[in-house]
């Protein structure tokens, strides 16, 4: 496959290649008006920054910090370059701490700041105004990255504060009686449609004896809609593969009632909210417990409805 050296065409090709890519007096990589990086203090810095693109290790990041320090000494009279190095240092420290969780734009910024630094440091005849303009551009990008990071942190902490739905459902599952016996009772107590369950949950979480009556008022508008929703569920044949209905409706209601008694003792008072003001403290407390149970059941029914819909879609 290798060309015959005596072939005039191949000789000409080699000549052209030599002309294009042969050694020359001109420093490679830099046009007129540029200084070679190989003799500048940035040479090692560039190698480190390029290696960060491959992998982020403590060793590389420590070397970056050291090299930035050396470059700072070398350029201690040039304030613009010092600021560039400061920017590199800040981004480098952020990457060192966060490693794989680093914001993707941080690596890009590191490369960009370095490229601008190289341009500013090695181009001959570049004006101060141009240097400052380049620096300001990078500072702007740095600030933007900081904003993005802050936003991401805020979103993460928000997510952490709000436990995922699944875990909440698990808690409910643990505290509530078996599904089969509970379902019919829940239907009787008019469950809200699935869309409303978040509102109800918030109310339950924040509910205190003082505002519970208000919560009852909030739930009220959903009741008609919820009843209609419950009716549709009843009209539709059950596809519950996990727990097929093996009990009669009456038996289920009876079991649910027993389970309710177990949870709440003898308290079966279903006094309307308006009557609460006249109750003794222990009665009001029992009433509140009942309400909470009812809401949990409602929540549970909504979840089951969702599961059914999901199964049908599947």
């Amino acid at each position, binding site marked *: 496959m290798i*060309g015959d050296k005596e072939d005039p065409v191949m000789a000409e090709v080699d000549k052209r*290649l030599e002309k*294009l890519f042969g050694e020359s007096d001109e420093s490679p*990589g830099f046009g007129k008006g540029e200084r070679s990086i190989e003799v500048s203090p940035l040479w090692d810095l560039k190698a480190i920054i390029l290696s960060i693109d491959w992998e982020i290790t403590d060793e590389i990041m420590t070397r970056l910090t050291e090299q930035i320090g050396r470059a700072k000494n070398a350029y201690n009279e040039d304030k613009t370059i010092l600021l560039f190095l400061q920017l590199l240092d800040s981004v480098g420290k952020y990457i060192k701490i966060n490693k794989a969780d680093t914001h993707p734009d941080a690596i890009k910024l590191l490369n960009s700041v370095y490229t601008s630094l190289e341009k500013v440091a090695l181009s001959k005849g570049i004006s101060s105004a141009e240097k400052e303009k380049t620096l300001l551009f990078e500072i702007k990008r740095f600030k933007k990255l900081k904003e993005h990071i802050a936003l991401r942190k805020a979103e993460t902490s928000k997510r952490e504060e709000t436990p995922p739905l699944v875990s909440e459902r698990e808690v409910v599952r643990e505290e509530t009686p078996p599904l089969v016996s509970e379902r019919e009772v829940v239907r009787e107590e008019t469950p809200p449609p699935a869309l409303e369950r978040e509102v109800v949950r918030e109310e339950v979480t924040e509910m205190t004896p003082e505002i519970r009556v208000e919560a009852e008022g909030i739930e009220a508008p959903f009741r008609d809609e919820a009843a209609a929703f419950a009716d549709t569920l009843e009209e539709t044949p059950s596809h519950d593969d996990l727990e097929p209905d093996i009990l009669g409706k009456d038996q289920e209601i009876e079991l649910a009632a027993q389970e309710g008694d177990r949870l709440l003792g003898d308290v079966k008072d279903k006094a309307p909210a308006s009557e609460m003001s006249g109750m003794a403290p222990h009665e009001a407390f029992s009433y509140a417990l009942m309400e909470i149970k009812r809401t949990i059941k409602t929540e549970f029914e909504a979840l089951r409805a969702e599961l059914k819909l999901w199964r049908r879609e599947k």
Partner: protein
Amino acid sequence: MAFVNLKKKEVQVKVVYYGPGRGGKTTNLEYIYNTFRSRIKTEMVTIKTHGDRTLFFDFLPFDLGTIQGYHIKIQLYTVPGQVKYNATRRLVLRGVDGIVFVADSMVMRRESNGHSLKNLQENLGTYKKDIFKIPLVLQYNKIDLGEQGIPLLSFEQLQKDLNAQLKVPSFQASALTGSNVTETMRKIISMTVASLRAELK
């Protein structure tokens, strides 16, 4: 087979830099472009992802000038090395005339070199090209990492792993510092043009 325009008397030679991800294919082209841009007078086109990885390909065209009445245009391409981009790699290989296989000299990348070479053979097969017949140069990249104490595969080991059957020209190189980058490219261009001439005769 290279694209030959008889009317315009123009020959386009396509050389593809192939190899495992993060092996230094793009760095090869970047070095060539940065070092010789004042002479080749063209622009390098590159499409990168978020983390600066090659998404589609890098492309560096340049003219070799007119030889025996034919205008020779060289086109250097890289492929994305990441395993998931095989369809793109195959696409870039369409119409390839010569290949530089950029292997990673790091010990930890030994397996990925082998997989990538095998992948090259398979993808060439889809175009009915034979890895044993196409102009091919092996480049064992990243030798500069040895100075930093990173364990590297020896030249002999790499030859045994990758070149035992192929027996093609090979270079130890550092795309980062430019060591043997130009030599690799010159070798593949020379071999490819010679191969094309042989085919056209």
